[in-house]
């Protein structure tokens, strides 16, 4: 057998596909299985050379539980070691013979037992891009956004879709994602231009994604919510845990759709318990490439503040939020997690740390001005947001630390200076 394999290597080289260096007839299936087991999963879009059955077996094995697949690997290692010297000369030929769309077969460095298919909505935003960059080597990333993603990494699939449409749902069902990371939420409603209100779009998109999760056998659903939903107010007290009620829409009705989205995602816990649902509620996210409200506010010079008020602020760097997201992808992680930064400090000290100035306005005056200009479309700043300049709303991040193992890597100073 050994001699035959080396002699037929040249014969099989032109036949060699992306899949693997098939050496000979009799052990072909066995070798295919072994090498496929070494690789981190098989793609449905691979050339149809009879490996679909193996792929299907692998997928079902994955569904049964990640542990099973690793066990298979373990038992096959001694035989794989024998196959390696046989397959080595042909392996050298295989990558040259076919365009290497995935990591070559001899790279055993992937830690995940099988290759995930990760659907990222809102991939064109700053956080979506960062997530795609972190994930595209270890998983097949499928991006969905109503915007185009021209400068994406090569192995990221992008679909320019309106998630409200049933056609989008049909397309995504075919992709069979294993993981969904939902970042595609309109958080700045007045800036949004398009048909339909931000509320309608957000809720419809979430409904479609929930349908998709149920129908396509999704195993993990990660939703990026926000700690703003707790609502800064006088009564709540400090260091709110994940069980605190979401009062944010009380004084800021423009975020009632975000509250609805958080609740809809929570329904997955009981409606589809087989899906590992994770809701992340980060504090104010800031970063150099972000254009969200906290980042834009901190870039202002002078920053408007309310006279006589100096609330404590919690900030978190975008890199740390992405790190939390990656931790949430680990098998077994499910639940609601507050994601905090490296600490909290008063708004006045943020101002001095950034070397900016601040202009205090009397609260009744600024509130009236904000309400009028928002109502007449002169500004995109919802008046409810002024509460963030008045009240502290500190959240407790212990659960993410103990269960996810999340700790912010950036220091408080780096975070404050980030935007």
């Amino acid at each position, binding site marked *: 057998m050994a001699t035959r394999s080396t002699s037929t290597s040249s014969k099989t080289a032109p036949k060699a596909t992306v899949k693997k260096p098939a050496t000979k007839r009799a052990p072909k299936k066995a070798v295919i299985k072994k090498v496929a087991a070494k690789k981190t999963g098989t793609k449905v879009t691979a050339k149809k050379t009879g490996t679909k059955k193996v792929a299907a077996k692998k997928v079902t094995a994955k569904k049964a539980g990640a542990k099973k697949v690793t066990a298979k690997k373990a038992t096959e290692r001694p035989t794989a070691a024998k196959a390696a010297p046989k397959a080595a000369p042909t392996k050298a030929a295989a990558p040259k013979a076919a365009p290497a769309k995935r990591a070559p077969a001899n790279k055993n460095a992937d830690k995940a037992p099988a290759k995930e298919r990760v659907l990222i909505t809102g991939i064109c935003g700053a956080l979506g891009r960062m997530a795609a960059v972190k994930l595209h080597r270890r998983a097949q990333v499928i991006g969905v956004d109503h915007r185009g993603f021209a400068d994406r990494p090569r192995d990221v699939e992008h679909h320019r879709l309106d998630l409200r449409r049933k056609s989008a749902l049909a397309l995504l069902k075919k992709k069979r994602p294993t993981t969904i990371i939902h970042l595609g939420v309109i958080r700045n409603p007045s800036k949004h231009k398009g048909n339909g209100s931000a509320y309608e779009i957000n809720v419809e998109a979430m409904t479609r994604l929930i349908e998709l999760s149920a129908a396509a056998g999704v195993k993990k659903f990660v939703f990026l919510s926000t700690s703003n939903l707790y609502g800064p107010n006088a*009564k709540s*007290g400090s260091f709110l845990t994940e069980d605190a009620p979401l009062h944010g829409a009380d004084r800021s009705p423009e975020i009632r759709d975000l509250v609805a989205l958080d609740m809809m995602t929570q329904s997955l816990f009981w409606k589809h318990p087989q899906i590992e649902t994770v809701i992340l509620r980060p504090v104010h996210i800031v970063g150099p490439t972000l254009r969200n409200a906290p980042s834009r506010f901190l870039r202002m010079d002078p920053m408007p503040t309310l006279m*006589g008020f100096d609330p404590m602020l919690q900030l978190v760097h975008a890199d740390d939020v992405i790190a939390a997201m990656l931790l949430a992808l680990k098998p077994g992680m499910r639940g609601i997690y507050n994601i905090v930064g490296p600490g*909290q400090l008063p708004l006045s*000290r943020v101002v001095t740390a950034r070397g900016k100035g601040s202009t205090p306005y009397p609260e009744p005056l600024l509130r009236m001005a904000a309400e009028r200009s928002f109502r007449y479309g002169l500004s995109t700043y919802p008046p409810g947001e002024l509460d963030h300049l008045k009240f502290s709303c500190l959240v407790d991040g212990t659960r993410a630390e103990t269960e996810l193992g999340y700790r912010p890597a950036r220091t*408080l*100073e780096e975070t404050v200076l980030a935007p």
Partner: protein
Amino acid sequence: MAISNRLWTLLKDWAIDHLDPEVAARIDAIPREHLNQYGVDPFGFDPEIVKLIAPVLMVLYRTYFRAEARGLENLPEGRCLLVSNHSGQLPFDGAMIGAACFLDAPKPRVLRSLVEFWSAELPFVSTFFNRAGQVVGTPAVARRLLEMDEALMVFPEGVRGLNKPFSERYKLQGFGNGFMRLAMSTGTPIVPVAVVGAEEQAPAVADIKPVAKMLGLPALPLVLPQILPLPLPVKYHIAMGAPMTFEGDGNEDDDFIAGHVRDVHRTIQHMLDEGRARRTSIF
């Protein structure tokens, strides 16, 4: 705004330079382990602010109220829960207990107290309380402060004690059970404190509750002297008793807890009666 900032900085520097060196030493000795690089603890307390408050407090404590404190050696290190009577319409008694613990106690400590949530709606007051270490009070916040080994001051009588009419003076009102459960579940010793003298600072002849309700205030006492929220210059006598530790985890029956609460109540009432008997004049 730059001008007012510079004026404020000048004022602060002047105040700090003219601070009594002994007081400055006490402030510098405040433990700073919970402070981050921006000088605040997780709730926003900044010990440097004490340098600005200290002169004002000293005037009130030494000159205006001429407070005398006894038993301050009972103030422990580490976590403790100071339980005191509340009186006099205006919450100066809390400030004076805090001043005593900071200026006179052999082991000086800054007391943390829980403030009403409506103070967070007031400009300047809210920021001042926050920087001075006084936090909007919820049970979770109280627990967290004790777990940070801070000294927490509570008034279980609440507004009942603060707004009682003059005829009811020195009759300690009922205590709730919450503070006892908190102390037991966090293993915190309770330090009884009795303040004599505050009752007479703003004697109220009546409490106009209907008008108070209309204005959204907890109470509206008719105070003599009227008009200004300034107390009379009564003489404060602050007594601190030995710490009382109660074993248990705080989940016991109401009856069991109420028994311990009665012990504390009796102790403070006794200290009040003793203080009054010892007192020779109100002013």
